[in-house]
Structures are given as structure tokens and as C-alpha cells.
């Protein structure tokens, strides 16, 4: 198992970063809820959230101006400090995946597939899912594609402008912004799909923590 642990200042328990659960100390067995988030480029986030705030680097951008100390790690084949117990080589161990947990079951969507198939209509644990991937900014998001009891099927469409990734649903042909899940044109304009909490991760870390995870693959 190769993953960072965090301590809390109150009880000194240690928490698993990826799972969000305490593994030692008074809080052992407790688990935190995962909130919806997005890992993306600044320009993409600002386009989706023009009024966003930014965590201050405190010193006129000093911290942000330095190189990311992990840059070489991202590019290397290293898999953490300790070798993983479960090394599943169906895909490259350092490949990014979108990891999803529903009803205690895990599923991973590899970026290599998403970059070729940026709009996936999938089902997991009985929930109809829409997985959207913007290759330009390497941003993946997952929504429930159920709206007012009806399951929609989405495909990529030409957009209203060149900056976004746009989808159309089969039922109404409304146009949707892919990363925000908002209807922007047509009968479902102003509707919003429910985004799901997920975790972008290296595959080796995900499968080490969720050894029974499903791995999305395109059907032959």
C-alpha cells in the first residue's frame, strides 16, 4: 500500500489520503465524505466560474511562481515510496484515471480512453452516468445523466463557441456545456446535471486501495 497518510491535530489519528478514512488512532474506522471537485487548468476553471476566488500564495504569487516539486515525479515511472501491493498492469501504472466510488464499489475511467471517447454514457451501480473529458485541459467530470426521472443519452456536438466542450441530449437535442453539465440552448436550457464526487488518481494508487475496482474498457 503506497499512499500518503495525514494526521489530524485533535486526536493524532492517521488518515488515508485516497480513501479518506482513519487507519490508526482514536478515529480509526471513521470515514470522511468526498465532495465534488474538479482538477483542471486555471483558464478553464475561470471560464466556468468567472467570480471564483483563488487561494492566496501569500507572497505575491511566490509559491505559484516556483516549479512544482513533483514535476519530475509526474513524468517518471516511480510508483510512490513503497512498491504497491497490487500492481495491475492492464494499463500503465502511472496513467491517470477518474476514480468513482458508489455503494462501496469502485470504478476507474482511464484518461487514455477518455481522450479518444470524450463523452461516455455509462451505468454503474444502477446509476446512469455521463463521463465528460476535455482533452485540451485534461479535465474529467462525472454526472448523473438522469433528469426528472428520465435517462438522457449524450453525444458531442458542435458548440456555441470554440472555447468549450458541448454536448447534445438525444431526447430534446438541447445543447449542454460538457464540463459544467448546464443546459445552454434548447428546451433544457438552464437545467443542470448532478455532478458526482470523484477522484483523479494514478492507476497504481487507485487499484492498490480498491483492488476490486472495475476498469472501464471499450467493448470490442
Amino acid at each position, binding site marked *: 500500500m503506497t499512499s500518503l497518510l495525514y494526521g489530524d491535530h485533535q486526536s493524532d489519528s492517521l488518515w*488515508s489520503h485516497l480513501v479518506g478514512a482513519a487507519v490508526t488512532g482514536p478515529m480509526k474506522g471513521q470515514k*470522511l465524505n*468526498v465532495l465534488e471537485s474538479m482538477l*483542471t487548468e*486555471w483558464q478553464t476553471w*475561470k471560464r466556468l466560474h468567472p467570480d471564483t476566488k483563488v487561494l492566496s500564495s501569500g507572497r505575491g504569487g511566490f*509559491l505559484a511562481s516556483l516549479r512544482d516539486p513533483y514535476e519530475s515525479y509526474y513524468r517518471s515511472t516511480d*510508483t510512490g515510496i513503497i512498491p504497491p501491493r497490487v500492481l495491475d498492469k492492464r494499463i500503465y501504472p502511472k496513467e491517470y484515471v477518474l476514480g468513482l466510488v458508489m455503494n462501496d464499489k469502485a470504478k476507474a475511467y482511464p484518461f487514455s480512453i477518455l481522450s479518444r471517447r470524450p463523452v461516455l454514457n455509462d451505468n454503474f451501480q444502477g446509476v446512469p452516468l455521463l463521463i465528460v473529458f476535455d482533452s485540451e485541459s485534461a479535465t474529467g467530470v462525472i454526472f448523473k445523466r438522469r433528469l426528472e426521472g428520465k435517462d438522457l443519452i449524450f453525444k458531442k456536438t458542435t458548440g456555441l463557441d470554440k472555447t468549450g466542450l458541448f454536448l447534445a441530449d438525444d431526447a430534446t437535442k438541447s445543447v449542454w456545456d460538457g464540463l459544467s453539465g448546464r443546459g445552454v440552448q434548447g428546451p433544457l436550457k438552464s437545467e443542470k446535471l448532478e455532478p458526482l464526487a470523484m477522484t*483523479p488518481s494514478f492507476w497504481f494508487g487507485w487499484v492498490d486501495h480498491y483492488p476490486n475496482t472495475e476498469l472501464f474498457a471499450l467493448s470490442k
Partner: protein
Amino acid sequence: MSLFARLIFILVGLTAVPVVAADLRPEAIVTVLPKDAIPAILSPTFEEGQKVSWLGPRDRVVGIEIGGDSRAYPVAILSRHEIVNDKIGVLPFAVTW
């Protein structure tokens, strides 16, 4: 010293859900840095996104929106602090990297 930490997680609140992922064995824990060697951010401050000039268009951020409050956490900062303890309204959460 670089710990393995390429996983983004936003966590909130405590619930009594049992651990169901792979068993996490305490004996497998290896300490490579003393406590608080990587200083978590405990009292984050924020700038208006439209006024920020020190972030490049393609710099990576973790973004969240809660109740109409949008916040971006630049990865360049997260890589040096790894945890931001933050709060929106009554909702305490941690951004971890």
C-alpha cells in the same frame, strides 16, 4: 522529500461509515517525515480570481463550488502544503493533494 501524493480529494465532515476499501494495515506505515514537516494551511486567505496575475492560463488548479462560492486551489501551492483546511458557511472541509 516527496511523499506519494498525486491524488486529489476533498473531504468533509465525519460520519460513522466503516472502512470498506482495501485493508489498511497499521504495521505497514512508514514514517519518512516528522509530524507537520509539510505545513498544512490552517487559515487560508483568498484573492479575487479576476485580479490574480500570478497564475498562468494553463496552470492546474483544484476547483470547488459550494452554494455558489467558487474557489480555486493552485496545484503549485498544494504541492508545498498538501492540505488546506477551509470552510464555506458551516461546512468545514479539507482540500488534500
